[in-house]
């Protein structure tokens, strides 16, 4: 027993150290790589010394907010995914599979079309409503007929996702003025985000993260199954309700700022659990760390697709994530 826990501790330490190292590397890469070429030494020095140069202005007003938005959204999506996987006890659960992203997108698109002058911080509320809507429909559909199996969730999720997406297409189709803009947004991207977006994002993300950490102990118990959790004196209804609110806030605000970026909420919690086990007190913060890493790296990679023009980061996460989803579905199918 003793040696097992020490191996576990050792693994956790390594994961966290490597995670922070990767976060630092991807952060620096995000500041260094772009259409406008800046010396690497200049990038590093600009973090500490102000000299009022153009290079510095580009790093501080364009690349830095973009990197910060990427880290916040990556962390938010990963936590949202971890919570969903815990409360449904289902490794395929994630904001995308659960229709949360599509629901939030639909409401944001409707908001943009109906009220073109809405400020972005109001759009966040539209996203919350949509996220709740999508999530509730999928949850309801997947749990009818006795228990939610991975297959049922995937089916219900994809069906609702497609249904909501076709509604989005419909709204877009009848409003051609804004088509290109909306289509680009629908792929999910964080290019061109500024400190205004960081300000909108920060309070919601921080609130969500803190709540998630407070809830993490209960989530660990819940992932053992409802009966065990009830036996251990947990208020299951309260845990689920709070979890749903956190997911809606984290996923909703992400969609409002960056569009529906997929697969991060699916992949990261699964990877984290494989690495360090399923104690959610650890899974949640480590998911946040690795989620931030994945989205920042993906965003750097997205800059190369149509260089020097921008491509949506959602393309990169889908490219990595879709094979991962198939792998999980196969693995789940074998054990079930």
């Amino acid at each position, binding site marked *: 027993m003793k040696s097992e826990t020490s191996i576990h501790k050792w693994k956790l330490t390594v994961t966290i150290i490597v995670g922070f190292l990767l976060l630092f590397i991807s952060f620096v890469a995000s500041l260094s790589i772009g259409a406008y070429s800046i010396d690497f030494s200049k990038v590093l020095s600009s973090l500490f010394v102000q000299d009022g140069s153009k290079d510095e202005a580009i790093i501080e007003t364009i690349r830095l907010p973009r990197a910060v938005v990427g880290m916040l959204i990556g962390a938010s999506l990963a936590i949202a995914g971890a919570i969903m996987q815990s409360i449904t006890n289902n490794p395929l659960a994630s904001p995308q599979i659960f229709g949360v992203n599509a629901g939030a997108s639909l409401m944001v698109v409707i908001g943009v079309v109906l009220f073109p002058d809405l400020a972005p911080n109001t759009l966040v509320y539209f996203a919350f409503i949509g996220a709740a809507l999508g999530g509730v429909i999928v949850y309801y559909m997947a749990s009818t007929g006795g228990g939610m199996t991975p297959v049922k969730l995937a089916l219900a999720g994809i069906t609702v996702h497609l249904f909501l997406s076709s509604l989005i297409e419909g709204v877009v189709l009848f409003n051609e003025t804004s088509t290109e803009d909306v289509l*680009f947004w629908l792929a999910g991207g964080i290019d*061109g985000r500024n400190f205004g977006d960081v300000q909108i994002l920060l309070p919601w993300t921080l609130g969500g993260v803190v709540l998630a950490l407070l809830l993490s102990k209960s989530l660990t118990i819940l992932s053992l199954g409802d009966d065990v959790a009830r036996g251990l004196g947990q208020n299951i209804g309260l845990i689920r309700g709070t979890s749903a609110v956190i997911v809606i806030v984290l996923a909703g605000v992400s969609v409002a700022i960056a569009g529906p970026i997929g697969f991060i909420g699916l992949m990261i919690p699964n990877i984290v659990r494989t690495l360090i086990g399923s104690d959610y007190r650890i899974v949640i913060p480590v998911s946040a760390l690795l989620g931030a890493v994945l989205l920042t790296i993906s965003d750097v990679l997205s800059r190369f697709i*149509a260089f020097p*023009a*921008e491509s949506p980061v959602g393309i990169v996460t889908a490219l990595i994530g879709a094979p991962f989803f198939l792998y999980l579905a196969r693995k789940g199918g074998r054990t079930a």
Partner: protein
Amino acid sequence: MKWTLRILTLAFILFLAACGSDGDDSATGSEDKEEGADTEETTRVIEHEMGETEISGKPEKVVALEFSFVDNLASLGVSPVGIADDNDKERIIEPIREKIGDYTSVGTRKQPSLEVISSLQPDLIIADMKRHKEIYDQLSEIAPTIILPSLAADYEGIIDSFETVSMAMGMEEKGQEVLQQHKDRMEELRAEVPEDEERTVLPAVVADSGYYAHNMESYTGSLLESIGLKNAIQSGDARYNKINLEQIVEFNPDVMFHMNSGEQTVVDEWEDNELYQDVSAVKNDEVYQVDRNMWSRFRGLISSEKILEDAIGYLYQ
């Protein structure tokens, strides 16, 4: 997401095709009788992007599914009966609206209504390669259809399309005449640009969600290049590129033509940023707001002349 759309579109089209086929037959039947009187020799084969189409006589009821074809028809002095105008008559630019008079809207360019098109009983449909390739068969059932590049064409491609349209209309001579006039006018306009013009230009659609730059191969870009105004973006696989302030700083255009889409745009956000104020065009006060309908959507002979007149007006007067 794309698939849903495709399947829905397909279902919709099949439904329409099933409904429409009876009506169509009788329509073409009566037409045949009418045209029967016309001599066989007026029948000609027009080659286009999707193959060959036989057209007889002079088509009188023409439906245009892209604005550039409306421009082409207007140049030939023909008024189309139906236009895919995105349900917004304002999108037809003033000089062309005057020429063509009344028409029926057949819906959006992206999703034109086959039912309305069919009800107009056209004898020629002109459609765009990129947007309407997939409904070519359905359109052909309604009337002879030719598919030409418009959305993805550069200025040269637009001229080629005009020639095809004039042949399809049985107005080749008139077409050559109009084209010659256009070319003369273009020469005049070119002469107004000094030989040593070195400023780079950047036309772009400016929306709330981003800055969509048109590079040297885009229609607007290639048109401006044709009179000696070099585009600031000489690279990129796509003709329309979403770019950020960072890329604008890098390309540093000397003149910017902004086609605004919506009240708020990304440029409003950028205006406070020193980097934007330092871009050559902004520093020298050479940022011009231009009409998106004219500058980007129309892509025809008349609009090409108007764009260049606009540009020259801003740059040299």
